[in-house]
């Protein structure tokens, strides 16, 4: 029988859809009956969605992109 610890230790496999069969059924049964674990999984999933949104912060500006490209091409030509 699943306990909260089992949900925690198997959550990566659950999120990556790698679990199957009896393990998946038992985990989802536990989630259905355990509000704490249900909240744990929901916040875990949302955290990953939020983290993915941080990627939008990692884009270079057009100005820097053009400046860097010009610099690199000049170095290439100067060889």
């Amino acid at each position, binding site marked *: 029988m699943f*306990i*909260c*610890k*089992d949900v*925690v230790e198997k*959550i*990566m496999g659950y999120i990556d859809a790698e679990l199957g069969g009896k393990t998946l059924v038992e985990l989802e049964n536990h989630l259905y009956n*355990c*509000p*704490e*674990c*249900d*909240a*744990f999984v*929901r*916040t*875990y*999933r*949302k*955290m*990953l969605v*939020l*983290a*993915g*949104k*941080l*990627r939008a*912060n*990692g*884009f*270079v500006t057009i100005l*820097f*992109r053009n400046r*860097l*490209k010009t*610099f*690199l*091409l000049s*170095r*290439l030509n100067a*060889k």
Partner: protein
Amino acid sequence: MKGSSGENITQTDFLRNVIGDGMNQEVDDNTPDEKLIELFLNENDQNAFEEIFNRYVDKVYGIALGTSRDPNSTEDIIQDVFLTLMKKIDTFEGRAKFSTWLYRVTVNASYMHLRAEKKYESDYSLENYVPYDENGTLIGRIKDKEWSSRPDILNFSKEAMEILDTAINELPETYRIVCQLRDVNELSYEEISEILGISSGAVKSRLHRARLYLRDKISDYFYEWRQNK
């Protein structure tokens, strides 16, 4: 050093290839990385170099920013990365994907910068970090602090994103880099394994503990934020 046909060539021959005036090759979004590298390495095709640059500059920037956590230095780091690419592309042996090689160069350049700036902090381990008690029952009032359906967070408000960013920043370095590469930059476990030179199992183990720690931190921060609003 190998030429385009795999023959041995001298450094002089290599440089002669690099400083040639080849710019006439047709390259586009669909040209495979390997072909671009071949054109750049053997024919000094600047269009090929530009395509590599355009294809990867944002990803390199994202990884450098995530690793160094220093926006002011990230531009210097990615300049170093592309200069390294120009100088050392001949060391790319094709055993891993080109992107993996480039991201490894990026992570190494970022760490070099952190060390130079003395910002590389000693780690502490999260290997024993668990959100449950000795009976295996969850602790920390997770349901009370539940935030996954709050519209102010799910709309990715500026404050919510800053809280997440702060929480990621507080992860120990060896955990943060794995979290950054997987959850922010969305690289595969195998790519991260090759970039960091650790096993896939170690990647998953670190990521697991990082996420547990991060979820707790974020829940605490969001809970405090809600109390103060």
